[in-house]
């Protein structure tokens, strides 16, 4: 999955690697994929369908049902974060793509800059900002406003998701926008379309592959995150990621149940992506879809 995500992050840099001179060159990748992707996935499946003693059972999957509210909350918050990222990220990508090339590079670097800092550190920083006695509230009170309770709310979790994952929305949309042939835009103007119509009828449809990549790249990690909800959501906004975390590393230690939850999550994400793909049949060809 990780590789798919990387390729959809830079859709235009995807090359066709068909002409590999020797098949032998493929083997290291094949071995790598078997060890780190196929085997773990198979193990998850095996664990999900067995009990602690190793005998086949459907017990784990049945137990997953009792966490449906957590599943719903995760998908809901992930979806909200994705929509917010799209609404904020698309215009940002559009504006960046309008600038001169050197300006574009600077702006894209600024977007990437926070990603050079550790993920945990960034999220910790938001904790201190959002706390009841944190920086924002102190600033508000200094200006005579009442303090606002922000930390440990769903809003804070969504904020954390958007903040951390919005570059993954901006980059693919931006790269697809810069790829659009300017003469196609001119042709639309030439045929009588004003700027609004050009955007709605040409630019937006042509940038859909980037939008779909972006939505995928924000939605998937948002749904399965556990650190963000743990740090910014307190105990009351448990997400699936937290639940899985608890089954493997936490007090509730139960790897079989954890595997079952992971499996269900994987299937749910695949379904969501399948639905997304329906929006644009050419998505795979143009923007580099994952899955």
């Amino acid at each position: 999955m990780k590789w798919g995500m990387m390729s959809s992050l830079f859709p235009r840099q995807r090359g066709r690697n068909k002409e590999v001179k020797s098949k032998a060159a493929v083997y290291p990748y094949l071995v790598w994929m078997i060890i780190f992707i196929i085997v773990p996935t198979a193990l998850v499946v095996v664990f999900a369908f067995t009990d602690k003693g190793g005998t086949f059972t459907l017990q784990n999957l049945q137990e997953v049902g009792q966490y449906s509210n957590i599943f719903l909350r995760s998908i809901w918050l992930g979806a909200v974060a994705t929509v917010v990222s799209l609404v904020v990220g698309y215009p940002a990508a559009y504006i960046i793509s309008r600038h001169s090339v050197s300006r574009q590079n600077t702006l894209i670097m600024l977007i990437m800059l926070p990603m050079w800092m550790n993920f945990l550190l960034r999220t910790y920083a938001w904790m201190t900002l959002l706390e009841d006695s944190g920086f924002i509230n102190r600033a508000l009170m200094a200006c005579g406003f009442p303090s606002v309770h922000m930390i440990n709310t769903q809003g804070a979790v969504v904020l954390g998701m958007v903040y951390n994952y919005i570059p993954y929305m901006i980059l693919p949309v931006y790269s697809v926008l810069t790829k659009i042939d300017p003469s196609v835009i001119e042709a639309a103007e030439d045929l009588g379309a004003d700027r609004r119509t050009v955007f709605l009828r040409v630019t937006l449809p042509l940038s859909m592959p980037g939008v779909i990549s972006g939505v995928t790249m924000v939605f998937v990690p948002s749904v399965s995150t556990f650190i963000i909800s743990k740090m910014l959501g307190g105990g009351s906004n448990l997400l699936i990621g937290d639940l899985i975390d608890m089954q493997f590393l936490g007090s509730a230690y139960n790897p079989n149940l954890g595997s079952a939850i992971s499996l269900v999550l994987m299937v749910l994400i695949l379904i969501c992506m399948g639905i997304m793909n329906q929006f644009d049949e050419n998505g795979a060809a143009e923007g580099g879809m994952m899955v």
Partner: protein
Amino acid sequence: MITAKGDAPEMEKVSIISLKDIAVSFDGEPVLKGFNLSIGDGEFVTLLGPSGCGKTTTLRIIGGFVRPDSGDVFFNGKRITALPPHKREVNTIFQKYALFPHLNVYDNVAFGMRVHGKSERAIRQKVGKMLDMVDLRGFEYRNVNQLSGGQQQRVAIARALANEPKVLLLDEPLGALDLKLRKDMQVELKKIQKQTGITFLFVTHDQEEALSMSDEVVVMDKGAIQQIGTPLDIYNEPKNAFVADFIGESNILDGIMREDFLVEFAGRRFRCVDKGFRTNEPVDVVIRPEDIDISKPDDEKLTGMVQNVTFKGVFYEVIVDVHGFKWMIQTTDYVKSGEKIGISVQPDEIHVMHKSEYSGKFGDYSTFSDEMGDDVQPLPKAEGAE
């Protein structure tokens, strides 16, 4: 009717587009300067010139994609200099067609009408008519990316004409096609222009294309018009050495106009049909390679040494050294390399031009024969030199 700079005073009632004193520069580099042009309604006009001469910029100014630094654009007498492209009654066929990749053939052609809010019924009818015209019936629901270059070209034409523009701008539309297809499309475009009666403004750097398609040719270089005229005028009466060299092959010699109908070049005096020059005015003399007759050398004629003979199919291309100046002659007579021949020219085949900034830059084929080498003999069988 088309008028060059200077003769604008009478009201041009028939001109559909006119450019007045246009100047444009990109990054301080002037592209067009003091540019005046008016284009008659219903004509096929070609802007011809080498790359970088400003012809595409001229087209983009009319299309509304480039704002001139100074000067004005008029459409049917109305000033449209500041009008954005989507409000102009002209449509463009772009160099690489610029079809909408996310739309099929039908939706590409329908785009302009949809934008203008036409009813789907009217659109269906019009698209059908357009596709009939460009011979693409049955391709309605094809993806444009799956079409060949020629077919994409036709879609671009149908899409532009569906909008019923008053003027169609064509920016080197045939440049990406192979030779055979290009010839077919030339005929087809000319036919469509006659059928629809729409004014075509065609940009190309291919002189043959310009000569065979246009009612009027505008020869451009360095952001200025060098000559405007019918293809015949441009070829037979080039205004300066640039035009003579750019359109077809030319021998351009230094000469002196001794009196009306008498010009001196290559050390001899020749009768000609030009007049109105000052007495003893230095001039450029143009002689087309196909207008030169070759014969046995005698004292009455110019004589020269054959340097090189190339078989071109219909004719031989012969390079002849006459007192150091290399002439190009196209002839159906065979001569041998190294042979001494006499050359003669009829008075009406001599064209005399005023000197210009281009004088001395073109029209000598010395580099040509150097490249070929002196003893190239392509044909083993001599058909008897005269």
